[in-house]
Every structure is written in structure tokens, then in C-alpha cells.
């Protein structure tokens, strides 16, 4: 018995610097069973089965690893948790904006990671190491909610105009969310040094409150709020 099929049309950004002089959009038609929905990543993997020159990153396929961040119909998101049925056709897929393209949908994330590294995303504690562990009250632990969940998919930072214009100076929403995650952690003793390192006119203050980061975050996090809280901490410390 043959299944009833429907066709979904795609336009996918293609660029292989070894062969292509410049990027182009390639059209694909994919037949999928009628009355069946799937995640965009599944559809892209089926397209790759038809055209194995298409390159993209993916790993966990359930919105946890952050590998398959891409620009879907003009909006950054994770292909693995975006339903095909929610997208207008032809579905236009491009690499994350603002970062150099290595090939097709794969971008060079070095600038993004360099900013993440700047905020020292690990606990710093000068107190003697306790016998068992550093305890934290439930109230203090609660302050990390909405911050620790970030998976570094870069959807936010690559949708931020300030990050596009100054990727080497502005930390960007992802890095700043993590910066605040350690500033507010009761077990961290380097709060002042962390704030001092962020007090220049670029690192935090290049945020103009556009809020694209909040709009696109696949985990529903709010970097703009974290940036506001860093400002408040800076104000409390040096105001």
C-alpha cells in the first residue's frame, strides 16, 4: 500500500568556498507522508539523503546540545525543535548571521566562544575548599534559574545587531547571561573583579535593548533582563 505524499519546498543557503565563487540559494522539494509532521532537522536530514553535499551541524536532535542553530525563515532557531508545520513555504534556511561561513549552514563560532571565555564562565572561590561541598541555600540556588539553562547555541548573539557590529568588543547576550550567572552565584567570591572587567563602554553597555535575543532564545531565556541586572550591580558597586 503506497502512502499519500505531500511536497514541501525549501530554499537552502549553499556555499562551498573550495568550489563556489559566492553563496547561492538552492531549491529543494521534499516528499513527506501526508498528515505527518516532523521537526525541521529531520527534513534537512532527508534532504541530505538526496543531496549529500549539503553540510550542517547537528547532534542530540532534541534541543539540548545547541548544534543546529540556524536562520529559519529569517529567524534564528534550533532546527531540531522547530516543527515543519509551523513554517511558511518555501522554507528559507540560512546559516546564523554575523559569523563567517565555513560551508553551507556551518559557521565559524570562534568569535562567539572568545566572548564567552572572557566572562570566566566558571566558579571562582578564594575561600578554603570545604571537606564536602560548597553549600548554597535554596533561595540562592533559585537565583540561577533562567541563567544556567543556556546551551550556547548562539541564536541570541547572532541575532543581535550590537554583536554584528562589534563581535570582538561586545560580549553579546549569551556571554552576558553567563556573566550574570556567576556574578549572582552565592558561592563565587570574584563578583567585584567580574564587574570591574565589564565596566568599559563596550562589553555590557553596547547593548541597546533591541531584545532580539529574548525573541529568539529556543530555551525561553531572557538575556536582556540579565544585562539589566549586571547594570544594576555595576550601579550598586560604583554608583
Amino acid at each position, binding site marked *: 500500500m503506497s502512502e499519500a505524499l505531500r511536497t514541501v519546498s525549501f530554499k537552502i543557503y549553499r556555499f562551498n568556498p573550495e568550489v563556489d565563487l559566492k553563496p547561492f540559494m538552492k531549491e529543494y522539494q521534499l516528499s513527506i507522508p501526508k498528515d505527518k509532521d516532523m521537526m525541521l532537522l529531520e527534513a534537512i536530514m532527508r534532504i541530505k539523503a538526496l543531496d549529500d553535499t549539503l553540510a550542517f551541524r547537528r547532534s542530540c536532535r532534541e534541543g539540548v546540545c545547541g548544534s543546529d542553530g540556524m536562520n529559519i525563515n529569517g529567524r534564528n532557531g534550533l532546527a531540531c525543535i522547530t516543527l515543519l508545520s509551523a513554517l511558511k513555504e518555501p522554507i528559507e534556511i540560512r546559516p546564523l548571521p554575523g559569523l563567517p561561513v565555513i560551508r553551507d549552514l556551518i559557521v565559524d563560532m570562534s568569535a562567539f566562544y572568545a566572548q564567552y571565555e572572557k566572562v570566566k564562565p566558571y566558579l571562582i572561590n578564594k575561600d578554603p575548599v570545604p571537606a564536602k561541598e560548597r553549600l548554597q541555600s535554596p533561595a540562592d540556588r533559585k537565583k540561577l534559574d533562567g541563567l544556567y539553562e543556556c546551551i550556547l547555541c548562539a541564536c541570541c548573539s547572532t541575532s543581535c545587531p550590537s554583536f554584528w557590529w562589534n563581535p570582538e568588543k561586545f560580549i553579546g547576550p549569551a556571554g552576558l547571561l553567563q556573566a550574570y550567572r556567576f556574578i549572582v552565584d552565592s558561592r563565587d567570591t570574584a563578583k567585584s573583579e567580574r564587574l570591574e572587567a*565589564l*565596566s*568599559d563602554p*563596550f*562589553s555590557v553597555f553596547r547593548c541597546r535593548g533591541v531584545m532580539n535575543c529574548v525573541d529568539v532564545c529556543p530555551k525561553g531565556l531572557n538575556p536582556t533582563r540579565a544585562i539589566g541586572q549586571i547594570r544594576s550591580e555595576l*550601579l550598586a558597586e560604583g554608583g
Partner: protein
Amino acid sequence: MVSSATSLTGNGLRDWLYQRVSALVLAVYTLFIMGFIMTRSMDYAAWVGLFHHTGVKIFSVLAALSLLVHAWVGVWTILTDYIKMASLRLSLEIVVILALLFYFIWAIIIVWSV
């Protein structure tokens, strides 16, 4: 820490605070002038009378200073966003600073000549 020689204060928090405080001064000054224009009969005598008050003169100079500070923080941000060629950016920054200082001094001269 990113160093920046040309920002107003070289410190992000200070620049940000100055911009917000100057915005407040400008907002109050605008409301004050608008209020005067809308509630009084506007003629030369009323206008000169208003600026005869020392308080109004000081407020006007404060508003001009706020404009200088506010505009510099804003324009500096725009220039460092969009002009990537350092020599061109620095030239434009100098032109803007000189223009703003010129207008500020001119505003003082005008207000104190009344």
C-alpha cells in the same frame, strides 16, 4: 575590559548614567519651554522677560550642556558601530566634538546676552 579613548568618560556605567541624567534634564527643560509657549501670549517682550531670569539662564545653559553630553554619548555609539575605518571614524568624531562644543559656547553667549 575593552579600552576606548574617545568615549565620554571611558567608563561604560558613567557614560550610561550621564546619558540618562542628561535625558532627564532635557525632558524637563522641553516641558518647561513648551509649557511657557502654550500658556503665555507669545511675543518678543514675554520671551525676553523669560530669559531675564537668572534661573532660566542657568537652566538653559544646563540644558545645552546636557545636549552636548547626551549627543556625544549617542553619536559616539553610532560612529563606533558603523564606521570601521579608524582614520575616518576619528575624523568624524573630531568634527562632531568641535561642532557640539561650538554650539554649546554659542548657546552660553546667546543666553547671557539677553
